[in-house]
């Protein structure tokens, strides 16, 4: 089915919020689909004895958390640097 050419109804004062919330909800759906799939894979692998779910679900050690910290920081930085409002490369104002 092709989309129509009729403008979508607006619910927020700023129409940009209408659209960006649509993106958020679409992403949330994808996250849930992936989460569902991951749990299904884990269950199959555990049933086949490939992984140990108890080990997977256990609280990570301080050592593991420290090992992951750099990656975690990079992830957070990539997410939050959008809020600086600054140009990443020198350009026109």
């Amino acid at each position, binding site marked *: *089915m092709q989309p129509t050419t009729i403008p979508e*109804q607006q*619910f*927020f*004062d700023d129409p940009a919020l*209408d659209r960006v*919330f*649509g993106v958020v*909800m*679409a992403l*949330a*759906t994808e996250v*849930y*689909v992936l989460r*569902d*799939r991951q749990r*299904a894979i884990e269950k199959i692998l555990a049933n086949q004895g490939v992984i140990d779910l108890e080990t997977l679900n256990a609280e990570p050690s301080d050592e593991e958390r420290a090992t992951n910290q750099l990656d975690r920081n990079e992830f957070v930085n990539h997410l939050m640097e959008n809020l600086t409002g600054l140009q990443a490369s020198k350009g026109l104002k």
Partner: protein
Amino acid sequence: MVGPPNIDARSFVAAQDFILSVKTHWTTKLYTQLDQNAPIEEIKQTVDYQFFAWLERHLQRYKYSGRYGIHHFQNQFREEIIENFSDNDLLILDKELNLPDYYTAVDIHQHPGGLWSDDIAGTVYERGARSTTPLGAATHQDLHHRLTTIATSQYKPDKILDMACGFGKSTQPFYNAFPDANVIGIDLSAPCLKLAAYVAKQNQVKNVNYHQANAEKTPFKNEEFNLITSTMLLHELPPESIKAVFAEAHRVLAPGGKMTHLDFYLVPTKFGRFIHSGHSKRNNEPFMESFIKMDIKQILENQGFKNISIEPFEESDGTLTSDYKPWRFPWTVILAEKAI
């Protein structure tokens, strides 16, 4: 042209379950956050209401359209669906039937292409209807059984007409409850009727037939039926069509015959009417508001009906109690009889 990639059944179900869970949150948490006593203009300005309205509109969009939408998922099985629907002696289609403008002007329920234009529309609608009422999703069928009980209380019909039967969900409790009765379901939608007839055939049902017909002008003889029923028909119709449906029902009902319509009609509060009219626009059902403004009792009296009763309908246990707070449709059952 290459279409979008297929979606596996697990991912489709996960996405649809997610959408339903969000809708349940909307029904119970977000709706109850709205201040029902505030002036309507104030409610409209609140962030709570804006999210409430956005989600009502767009959860329905996600349900039917896009990557995880029902239409895209069912479209993968198009050939199989059409094959299932070939040749069914329980079904009479009317290729000459003119579909009314009000029916084709908008894609009702945000169902892409409406209920009529696509061969798989019945199957798409059936899947969508499983989660029409989030809190009653598991027991939605129960609603139809409740209506069947009301419609046939102390009464045993032998010829039943189910107007706007869709894919037959509302017809099934009648043909199952009255195996000796002759039951006919009519609808405008050929794709929905094909699914209804397919289901009946699969279940080896002997006492039902489906006809493609407009409830405003049916092909049946005068006084042919002793029970006429509809479920969620009237709110889809403009006022003149509602009057025409009642007049047609009166024509084909035998003297003493009964008529039962389950619909969304009694909306006693200003807040309720505000929410209902918003739903009408957001769900592409433009006549919900005009219907609740009609004086149905007077119209039925003018047309010669007797023993008219218009009462709230308890679609599942406890929904009519004062402490029931979640969003719900204003379910109403309209009963009337043709004078002897």
